[in-house]
């Protein structure tokens, strides 16, 4: 994980969501034709990224506000989740410079 990177959806990704309860979400990536089961924290992170590219810090603030958990706790968990979303092809880091441009 690159903590200082910004995060966005990979090019071509187009996400569709289904949620039946508060704990699990199924997300379909039309770009890749893949379907994934993710937990609530991952879903909240991915929904924020899907709304627009954002920095790690913005994600931490957003998720802290959403969950009421402290930022340090959220930051630790978020690193793992972003790694996982990247492996699934659902999110990707970009350098802050690229993000700025």
């Amino acid at each position, binding site marked *: 994980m690159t903590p200082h990177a910004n995060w966005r959806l990979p090019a071509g990704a187009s996400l569709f969501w*289904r949620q*039946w309860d508060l704990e699990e979400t*199924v997300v379909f990536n039309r770009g890749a*034709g893949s*379907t994934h089961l993710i937990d609530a924290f991952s879903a909240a992170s991915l929904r924020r990224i899907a709304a627009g590219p954002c920095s790690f810090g913005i994600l931490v603030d957003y998720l802290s506000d959403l969950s009421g958990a402290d930022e340090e706790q959220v930051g630790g968990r978020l690193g793992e989740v972003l790694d996982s979303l990247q492996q699934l092809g659902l999110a990707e880091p970009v350098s802050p410079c690229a993000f700025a441009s």
Partner: protein
Amino acid sequence: MRIRELTPRALNERLRGEGIGLRWGPFVSQIRIELPELTEPIHRLYADFSLCEEQFRDFRITIRHRGGRAQRAEFVLDNCYALPLFPRAIALGMLEWGLNWCVYNNIHSYLLIHAAVAARDDRAILLTGPPGSGKSTLCAALVGRGWRLLSDELAVIDPRTLDIWPLARPICLKEEAIDLIRENVPAAVFGPAIHGTAKGTIAHMRPPAESVERSNRPARATWIVLPRYDPGFRTGLEPVSSARGMLSLADNAFNYHLLGETAFDALSELVGQCRIARLYNSSLTDALRELEVLTTDAFRPPPQ
């Protein structure tokens, strides 16, 4: 005219001539067979099927002898595509397998799930899972208890309406399941045991006449069961969330990747209307009791 109304000799002449037209659910096949030893099993297993008078055919199938003394045969689709040669002794098994192969390789207007399906009052139970999980055995036992057979192999789902269409053809059982169903369903009619297939010894159970007659009537998915067979299990049900149920169906679909968003939408709607459970199974009697609980109001999954 039903096949049972033909003499075996008349059926043999038709099979070796132009073939016979058979409707199974939404599909119609022309089946031509040059191997006379298949006539009697087809006469027995397809006794309640009507010969199809329509001209249109989804699949034109020929099974013919190849290889001289090598006693091999082949399955040819539409006179242009042949499966690899196989031993003539397993030709009946290859006919049944090949008919399913025709569907899951060519029909993509339906969402196709690897599942056994039976219905009661047009409410369907889907038993889905990998080979060896006990789908066909459970399906045959349910059919023996009066459930309508839709298919022992394929759930054919209309993605627009979520209707499940029947393919009420013979149920393929393997190894120990053959005797288990013979004991549990004494009225069942079987074809010959076929040795040496990729699944070991198999035998086919004739679909009940009522299932064949109602094969133009779809059913509604109501229960999804993910069976797992292991002699060491304590038989029981475990509720499964809609999300995990959907992933299981997607994993067991033949054409989910081709249908993409259409399949995603259909499956997510379908699981929303179903009770879903994993069935740990070591005893057919106990498993049937558990399925009875699931398919009545006695089963109450915890709120999600």
